[in-house]
């Protein structure tokens, strides 16, 4: 599962007032501190830090799962993952996506300038965005192809899944929170009902939804038949399979966002609403000028945690469609899993993991900056 930090930033968490101490405590303190910290640091070092380092190391090897080979191959794995034959660069490839990246960079730079941030960070942001937009233009030319088309397919599908499901999960969560807000009787009951799917294990959720969407037996098919529509084989149709996965995921996780938004709504100072309504503002105005700004914190939090979790999607896809039909729902984590355990290539799997980690770290870092600004 994805984990990420949130506001307030670490420095404020640790900023507790100092109290006068007798000297001579210091040495004892360090020993005591070590005692308290050792268990966590031990597991942290072993299970968080070391895997990253080891993945880095393994990625430079042709490392067979069954011990057949373990030879150093330098950047071969990266070349296989990220490169291809007859590579060219042009301006029009993925033009839409690059335009979006450029627009986002521009927005960030403008925002950075407005807040009078350090020039270095503004320039840095701008440069990074431009670089990203430029890199996206690299692609195999005619007669060539990616060395591992499955990798790029899985990246694309992961990105598509994230891009589509995140706004739905946020929007729906917010809408449901707005519908439930206030201290009415039964709020707790409704909140529990909508939150319930979140505590189910992924295999129970996939079980339910695989059958719901089943064209021969499912409730959805039955319902559609009553309307006179042919049953749709959601999970076997390459166009619709991803939507089936999205529907499953939304049902599963929106409850969490609902709870977060509800808490955020409760935190908005009611006097702001009073002030707004005294000024004659209607419901929509109050929503726009009190609720939305008040929820900005939560929204950023929800958006980023959702983003990071969506990138790491695996269970629903693997159980419901195995990445199919064909490659239509293949995602990155699945690609790593199959590279390692099916094709026995642990080195390559480690390389993909590492690239994935760097990507996630980048997203987290961006989140830190955004929310640090907010605090």
């Amino acid at each position, binding site marked *: 599962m994805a984990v*990420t930090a949130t506001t307030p930033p670490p420095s404020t968490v640790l900023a507790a007032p100092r109290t006068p101490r007798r000297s001579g405590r210091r040495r004892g303190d360090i020993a005591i501190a070590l005692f308290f910290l050792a268990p966590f640091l031990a597991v942290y070092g072993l299970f968080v830090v070391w895997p990253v380092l080891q993945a880095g190391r393994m990625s430079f090897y042709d490392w067979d799962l069954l011990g057949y080979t373990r030879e150093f191959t330098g950047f071969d794995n990266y070349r296989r993952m990220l490169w291809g034959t007859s590579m060219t660069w042009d301006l029009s490839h993925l033009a839409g996506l690059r335009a979006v990246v450029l627009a986002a960079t521009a927005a960030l730079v403008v925002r950075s300038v407005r807040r009078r941030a350090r020039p270095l960070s503004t320039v840095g942001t701008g440069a990074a965005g431009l670089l990203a937009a430029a890199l996206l233009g690299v692609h195999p030319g005619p007669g060539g192809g990616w060395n591992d088309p499955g990798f790029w397919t899985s990246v694309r599908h992961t990105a598509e899944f994230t891009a589509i499901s995140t706004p739905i999960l946020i929007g729906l969560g917010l809408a449901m929170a707005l519908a439930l807000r206030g201290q009415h009787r039964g709020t707790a009951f409704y909140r529990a009902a909508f939150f319930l799917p979140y*505590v189910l294990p992924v295999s129970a959720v996939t079980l339910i939804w695989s059958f719901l969407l089943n064209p021969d037996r499912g409730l959805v098919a039955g319902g559609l038949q009553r309307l006179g529509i042919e049953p749709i084989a959601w999970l076997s149709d390459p166009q619709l399979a991803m939507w089936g996965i999205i529907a499953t995921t939304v049902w599963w996780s929106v409850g969490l966002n609902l709870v977060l938004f509800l808490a955020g709504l409760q935190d908005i100072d009611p006097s702001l609403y009073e002030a707004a309504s005294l000024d004659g503002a209607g419901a929509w105005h109050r929503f726009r000028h009190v609720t939305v700004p008040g929820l900005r914190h939560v929204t950023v939090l929800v958006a980023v*945690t959702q983003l990071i979790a969506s990138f790491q999607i*695996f269970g629903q896809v693997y159980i419901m469609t195995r990445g199919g039909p064909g490659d239509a729902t293949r995602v990155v984590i699945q690609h790593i899993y199959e590279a390692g355990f099916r094709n026995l290539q642990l080195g390559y799997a480690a390389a993909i993991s590492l690239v994935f980690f760097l990507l996630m770290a980048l997203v987290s870092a961006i989140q830190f900056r955004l929310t640090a600004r907010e605090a």
Partner: protein
Amino acid sequence: MATPIPTVTAGDRPAPAAAAPAGPPTRRRIRFRPGVRHGFLLLAAFVWLLPVLWMVSMALTPNDVQQREPVGLLPDGLTWSNFADVFQLGLMLRWFGNSVVVTTAATVLTVAVCAMAGYAFAKLRFTGRRLLFAVVIAGLMVPREAMFVPLFLMFSDTGQQNTYQALFLPRVAFPLGVFIMTQFFSRVPDEYEEAARVDGAGPLRVFWSIMLPLARPAMASLAIFTFVLTWNDYLWPLVIATEQEMFTVTTGLASLQSNFAAATEIGSLMARGLIGSLPLVVLFLLFQRQLIRGITLGSGEK
């Protein structure tokens, strides 16, 4: 898996009593009569839970009936045999036991370890504290799901595949847990500690007798949260526990969703799914407030 892990509040924040109050009469507000509102929400909740209700219906219908005809929301020929099968056939009980062992161990260890670390970061002064804390927080950026390859190697090379410790140990490294506990402890006024120190208590004593009891709400929330996450873990148990006897409920249930079982044993499959989810649902219903309190925002101080 697209379930995000949210932040956790430090400590026992009282829910703000004054939520949106009934506004002054001059406010033009769209208000539905309570009955209409309830009706709408009730319908919405029912539709939302429809999949679960359907699952119950399928679990209560015999397998052979369902081979011929799909069943709707109401069971067709009530039977408890599917539920009986869960406990008599297959390894469901064993999987259940595995999940209980692994999840309990992970929860207890995580809470203990994070509480200790949180206390150290919040209350103890030592050089490099900030740096170390930053390193811990940096760990939040590591996508746990993606790092299973080196972790797998580590456990399999030391012959620990298909062991309980392989299942719960990696879970214990939970930087977010440390963050939560640190946030909590840093809000505990120093006076508590000072008072105890004046009385001659050492830091261990202070931690055990004063800090821990104070931290009970936060620890409870962290515990429940870790419990849910660990019970629902899929990728790591899939990778490291390949023997059927060592499956958890989550991976075991997934292993049954094949082409063949789907065609012939739907009722039993659904019954297994329900039983497998039951502990979490029960836990949720009992400790709803703690769980939800645990995942509400800590950043009330904007």
